[in-house]
Every structure is written in C-alpha cells, then in structure tokens.
C-alpha cells in the first residue's frame, strides 16, 4: 500500500564504492524526484523526471546518475562514493506542474565510511 517506496532504507558503504537506491511509486504520477537532506537538515532537489524525461538537474556531481525505466520508477546510482555524500535521500512523486502536491518516500540513509 506504500505510495512511494524506496530501498534500501539504510546503507553503509566504503568510500569509492558504487551504490544504487531504487524508488517506485504507485500513485499514477507522471513526475518523480530525488531530494537530498544534508547534515544541516536542508531538503534540496537533485533531479526530476517527467514521463522518463529529465526536466530538472540541479548542480549535482556527475557521479550521481538518475535512471527512469518507466514513469513509476526512478533509481539513483552513485559512483565513487565520497564521505560528503553521506545524507538522507528522499524519492518523491507528483503530477507535473505547480499546484500539485509532492509525496515523499520514507528516505534512504546513506553513510559513507
């Protein structure tokens, strides 16, 4: 029944590794997002996809690559993990356009050691 689900919830990994976080939504939305909450608790958008097309790409290192196989899925792959990548990553979805509520997943806690 979970509307926006993401896995894994917790991930501890070593510097230099490559990891992926998966996200799926069953709300029938056409737009999906990745947000990052850093150590200062700010929530900032990283990427947004609409119908598998990238529409927002904030200033994010190239090591981060989102992939949307279909409009219900948006995965985040991170190459060559660095200590500063430690954060909580939230997947979210909505219908496209201002005025539509964005619904969030429960978050993925990534710790790079």
């Amino acid at each position, binding site marked *: 029944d979970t509307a*926006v689900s993401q896995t894994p919830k917790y991930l501890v990994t070593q510097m230099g590794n490559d990891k992926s976080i998966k996200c799926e939504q069953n709300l029938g939305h056409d*737009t999906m997002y990745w947000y990052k909450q850093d150590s*200062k*608790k*700010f*929530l*900032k*958008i990283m990427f*947004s996809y*609409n119908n598998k097309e990238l*529409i*927002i790409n904030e200033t994010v290192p190239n090591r981060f690559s989102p992939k949307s196989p279909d409009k219900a899925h948006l995965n985040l792959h991170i190459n060559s993990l660095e200590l500063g990548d430690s954060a909580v990553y*939230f997947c*979210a979805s*909505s*219908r*496209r*356009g*201002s*005025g*539509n*509520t*964005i*619904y*969030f*997943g*429960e*978050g993925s*806690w990534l710790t790079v050691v």
Partner: protein
Amino acid sequence: DQQVKQNSPSLSVQEGRISILNCDYTNSMFDYFLWYKKYPAEGPTFLISISSIKDKNEDGRFTVFLNKSAKHLSLHIVPSQPGDSAVYFCAASGEDTGKLIFGQGTTLQVKP
C-alpha cells in the same frame, strides 16, 4: 541565497494551546505553498497547502495563512496535541516543473 526561510528552529507549546509556525519567502514568482510534517526516520508528510490566489486555507485543526504583500505564511495548529510534535517544513513552488523550495524546518514540541 535561501528563498524560503523559517527563522525559528524550534517552538515549544503546551497541549491544547495554539502553535504558530512562520515562514518567509523572497521570490514573488512562487504561487503555491505547502507545509510538510516530518517525524524522525520518516519522509516528509504533506499537511496542508495554499494557492497564491487565496489568503487562508483550513483543514481541521490546521490553518495556513498567506500574506503575499509581506511574503509571509504561517501555519496555525489549534488545539495542539502531543502527537503534533515533529519537524515542520514550509515549501514553495512557482514553476511548471513543480519543483519545491524548502525552508530549513521548525521543530515543534507539544508538552502534555
């Protein structure tokens, strides 16, 4: 440059009283505002929203007020309950992409 600001990092109120959480924004192009509630180890949960064509929206114990001239919005919770204790984020949107800009959050503690 932070376009959405919540200047109070924390707020403590007594159960049954009113909680007022404030939010200021700088971008006059924002046309949709939302409040999210977040418990530890969970994702933000949508609470209430308001369009820029309105100045008030009410849903049960929660009311959001928008003052466009002052670029200010507030969330009122009446009466406050201990279960309302959480971090509250204000967010704004003004683009067709639906991109949300978040404030830094206010931690509300409601004491029994």
